[in-house]
């Protein structure tokens, strides 16, 4: 086998989406004669991923990440281009291929709600034809890393979100896949939960040499796990390279958020670029270059009646938008 486990060439996917204006008469017209619009979800994307690599797959909502993952796992037929994973064409859905990969989607459930995860695991063992001794060994290893034992006997519906995610991921790994496609595996989890999953993935990759391609909204997932990232935006590949290069190139900024006792009477434009943040309206945010953070912070603290100050990385979505919309 070649050392590249994933090869993607000119991969494209165009959806036909019914298009209709609002209103009653348009609805009636649409019933008889439907208009379709082509939506180019993925356009001629190329990349290769070597065996054992962990690659972060980034892009704003609707950029085409999930569509690409679905094509690579075999759920979707592309409208153009080609892809091979472990030497297989994914959408042929060959059983040998399906036994050597896994797709875990943070927002979908694989496990049955009404029965304990242990029973679903045994069903998976039968479906993937895992021999007993191999199953026991894999389970032991997963239990060591994820502490599954206490969760196994409760019906899945009684587990917390974080506990359920651990079980979902474990269920997807019982057959020891060589390639892992993870779509938002940490979504909705609290910080501890995210860290657990992250540590697990790193350790799993080290032990098994599995190739991992993951999407995430959390920059921390990506920075902790991936040396390399691929960014797509509006269906096109925009960046493919080291993560350190990316932050040098497009995110040498930090966000300083301040809460002032008398917010409206102070002008912050002298300290850096002011940014809007709708979620947290009573706080003001300014964007400054990373090397200026210490200087600007101390000036702010000295000059203004500050109640609260935070320094954060800009959200990954903003970084990407900013970098490629210029």
């Amino acid at each position, binding site marked *: 086998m070649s050392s590249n486990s994933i090869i993607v060439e000119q991969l494209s996917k165009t959806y036909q989406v019914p298009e209709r204006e609002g209103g009653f008469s348009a609805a009636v017209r649409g019933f008889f004669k439907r208009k379709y619009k082509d939506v180019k979800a993925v356009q001629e994307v190329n990349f290769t991923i070597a065996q054992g690599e962990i690659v972060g797959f980034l892009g704003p909502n609707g950029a085409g990440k999930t569509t690409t993952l679905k094509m690579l796992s075999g759920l979707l037929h592309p409208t153009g281009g080609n892809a091979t994973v472990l030497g297989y064409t994914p959408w042929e859905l060959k059983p040998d291929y399906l036994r050597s990969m896994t797709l875990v989607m943070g927002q979908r459930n694989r496990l049955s709600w009404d029965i304990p995860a242990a029973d679903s695991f045994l069903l998976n063992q039968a*479906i993937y034809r895992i021999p007993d001794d191999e199953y026991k060994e894999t389970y032991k290893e997963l239990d060591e890393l994820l502490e599954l034992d206490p969760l196994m006997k409760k019906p899945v519906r009684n587990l917390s979100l974080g506990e359920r995610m651990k079980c979902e991921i474990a269920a997807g790994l019982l057959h020891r896949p060589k390639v892992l496609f993870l779509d938002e595996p940490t979504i909705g989890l609290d910080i501890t939960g995210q860290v657990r999953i992250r540590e697990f993935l790193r350790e799993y990759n080290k032990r098994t040499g599995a190739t991992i391609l993951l999407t995430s909204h959390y920059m921390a997932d990506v920075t902790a796990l991936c040396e390399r990232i691929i960014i797509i935006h509006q269906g096109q590949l925009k960046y493919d390279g080291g993560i350190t290069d990316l932050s040098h190139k497009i995110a040498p900024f930090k966000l300083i958020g301040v809460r002032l006792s008398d917010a409206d009477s102070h002008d912050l434009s002298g300290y850096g670029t002011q940014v809007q943040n709708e979620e947290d309206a009573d706080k003001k945010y300014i964007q400054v270059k990373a090397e200026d953070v210490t200087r600007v912070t101390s000036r702010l603290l000295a000059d203004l009646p500050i109640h609260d100050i935070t320094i954060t990385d800009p959200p990954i979505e903003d970084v990407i938008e900013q970098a490629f919309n210029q």
Partner: protein
Amino acid sequence: MQTLKLLSSFLKVNIQMSLAYRADTVVNILLNFMWLGWELLSLNIIFSNTTSLGGWGLGELIALLGVFRLVNTMMMALIWPNTEKFNQSIRDGSMDYTILQPINSMFLVTFSRITVWRIWDLILAIVLIVVGINMSGDTTTAASILAFFLLTISGVIVIYSLWIVLIALTFWFTKFDNNVTILHALLDAGRYPATVYPVWLRMIVTFIIPVAVATTIPLQALRGDLNINQIILFFGVGVLSFWIATKVWKRGLKQYSGASS
């Protein structure tokens, strides 16, 4: 062999699920006996006034009732619960996981839920068939019993195939929760032998809706009313319908993978 092993795993999981609801199981078994009593009683009322119904004797009708119950058990134990699960998996997207399992997705979708307490229905159906065959007596031979079993299997396959086609339509329309209600309405016509109905209706029931295939035809084979060519033909219908269903299912999966996002 692998299939049997999987089936037993499905069965195990389903037994575990239903053991949680004890009262439910008891009530359902009782209800089942009540319905059987009612059906036998109505047959008895009909036959206290006449000796045959459309040329069929009491024993034959009891056997027919047995076959009908067999098909009905399939509806209740497999078709309903799996369709419900299927429709839900289309809505919530867990169908994606089903497709990515390394086994036949059609098999997985149609056998992963089994209402286990329906085992009583199955036993009842078999008892009715055996009793009915015994009562009808003289016309049956070893060959006709064999033909009966072959055609019963073929009939069950026809209904299974029809079901596959109906649920596969969901791949095109995404919202088609009535898929099984339609099937149920069709099947209910099979409760009485097709020869009771007028010719035009019989044509529909026998050919356009191949449900009678599952109930009446096996019985005709049992009585020795069918010649060898007809038996082969009807068995062929079963094979053909299964083949068509498999094709439709595959097309449906392809449609699903083309449209979902």
